[in-house]
């Protein structure tokens, strides 16, 4: 019995971290209508940045947030500005510019293999003060770094929700996502919004990276499994919805952890896909998605 309780809580903790890795993806899609296939690679870049920061300075790993998140914000900002924007301009009239998907895939190949060239194929684990620290309750064990991660997810989710719903910039972001030309006529600088949104999406990966590094390993293709998971999560939650992404992540975490108590871990992977297709059957727009978007 206690095993199940432990599984449920662990599932929620890990699930919210999955949600966190997917938030950036959903944000970028929501505005730019682009699936960012380089998402996992950007997470990888963030993890390397966090890893090196923590390893070289030896400080508390969460201090890396203050370095990695701005770094990834600007990384994303300029990536959009110099690489993605020109392609976007060519596809101006198309709602979901598919060529941009290929470009992000190109970025994915370049980043992952650049990391391989620079850092080698080695697996690295950062040794930090929180690594391996457990919270023990009634013979149940929870990793502190996951608990902190879940907390960070919640805070980021609330912040992003507020940002998009109520801040001036957030509303401009939504306006741009709905009608780019009309937004321009309101004095909203479309390309800047895109840069910012891409930067924000990447910054979210930076947050996820800092949360992962204390208990996870880093290597050049570390983003790939998170990538596919994030795809499933954002569709489950409804593309473009931040709360949806977090909830979707938690569902995946629960299926993975609780499901595994009843069947082999390989089957839970399968179960995730079955559940996913089932949700698409009954609610094609995902749990929080808008009907207009599918």
């Amino acid at each position, binding site marked *: 019995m206690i095993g199940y309780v432990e599984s449920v809580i662990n599932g929620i903790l890990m699930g919210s971290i999955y949600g966190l890795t997917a938030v950036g993806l959903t944000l970028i899609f929501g505005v730019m209508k682009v699936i960012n296939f380089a998402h996992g690679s950007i997470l990888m870049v963030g993890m390397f940045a966090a890893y090196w920061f923590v390893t070289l300075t030896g400080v508390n790993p969460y201090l890396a947030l203050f370095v990695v998140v701005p770094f990834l914000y600007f990384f994303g900002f300029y990536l959009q500005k110099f690489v993605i924007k020109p392609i976007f301009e060519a596809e101006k009239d198309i709602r979901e510019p598919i060529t941009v998907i290929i470009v992000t895939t190109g970025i994915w190949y370049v980043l992952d293999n650049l990391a391989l060239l620079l850092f080698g194929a080695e697996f690295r684990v950062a040794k930090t003060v929180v690594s391996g620290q457990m919270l023990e309750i009634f013979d149940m064990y929870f990793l502190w770094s996951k608990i902190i991660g879940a907390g960070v997810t919640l805070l980021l989710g609330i912040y992003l929700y507020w940002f998009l719903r109520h801040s001036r910039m957030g509303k*401009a972001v939504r306006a741009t996502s709905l009608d780019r030309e*009309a937004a321009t*006529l309101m*004095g*909203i*600088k479309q390309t800047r919004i895109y840069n910012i949104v891409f930067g924000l999406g990447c910054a979210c990966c930076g947050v996820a990276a800092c949360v992962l590094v204390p208990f996870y390993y880093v290597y050049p293709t570390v983003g790939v499994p998170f990538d596919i998971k994030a795809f499933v999560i954002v569709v489950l939650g409804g593309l473009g919805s931040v709360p949806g992404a977090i909830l979707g992540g938690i569902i995946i975490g629960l299926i993975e952890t609780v499901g595994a108590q009843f069947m082999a871990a390989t089957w839970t992977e399968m179960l995730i896909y079955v559940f996913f297709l089932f949700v698409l059957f009954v609610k094609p727009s995902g749990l929080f998605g808008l009907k207009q978007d599918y």
Partner: protein
Amino acid sequence: MSLLSIDKLNAGYGEIQVLFDVSLHINEGEIVSIVGGNGAGKSSLLKAISGLIKPMSGSVSFRGENVSRVPADEIVTRGLVHVPEGRRLFSLMTVYENLEMGAYNRNAKANFKRNLEEVYALFPRLAERQKQLACTLSGGEQQMVAIGRGIMAQPKLMMLDEPSLGLAPVLKKDIFAAVKRIAIDYETTIVLVEQDLVNSLAISDRAYVMEQGQVVLEGESQMLLTDPHVKAAYLGV
């Protein structure tokens, strides 16, 4: 000095040129109508002025500065607002949020409250529907939001592209009245592109007639109403 003056403007879409040597000027405080048949290039002219399409040659100067190379979003900040054809609302945002976006530029932010009240006074229906998503409004309601959004930007010069399109006769009258009131109350200069000649010429001071991308006629509104060519071509009399 004119508020807006356009000199020998040539513009188009990619390879296709649709405006040929267009010259005109708008004085401060005027209401000027631009009329012309379908495809005459009226909307394109407005787009060229507001920076949505880049001129091939010629100049657009607004308040004495050449703005033909200034990006569209920057032009708004300078006080030149374009309310486009076909409403172009932010469909998944509420009426209120749409109006808020109208006031996005930094000049308009300060007077947001006052302008909002004005808009609601002008279109009480919008006050009722504040929280409704724009995509679920009827055509006429959407047109009100579009105009309201323009007012929210607190422009020096507002260009309206076919504001009465698709409106019920009773509303049409209201819209033209509203345009006139905006011009007077806010001291806003207005460029009005319209198919409804009778109504638009009735409220405007001067008018330009466009055909095939060129200005073919200009003059006092009242005079144009009696011009035989205009009568034949646009009033169907």
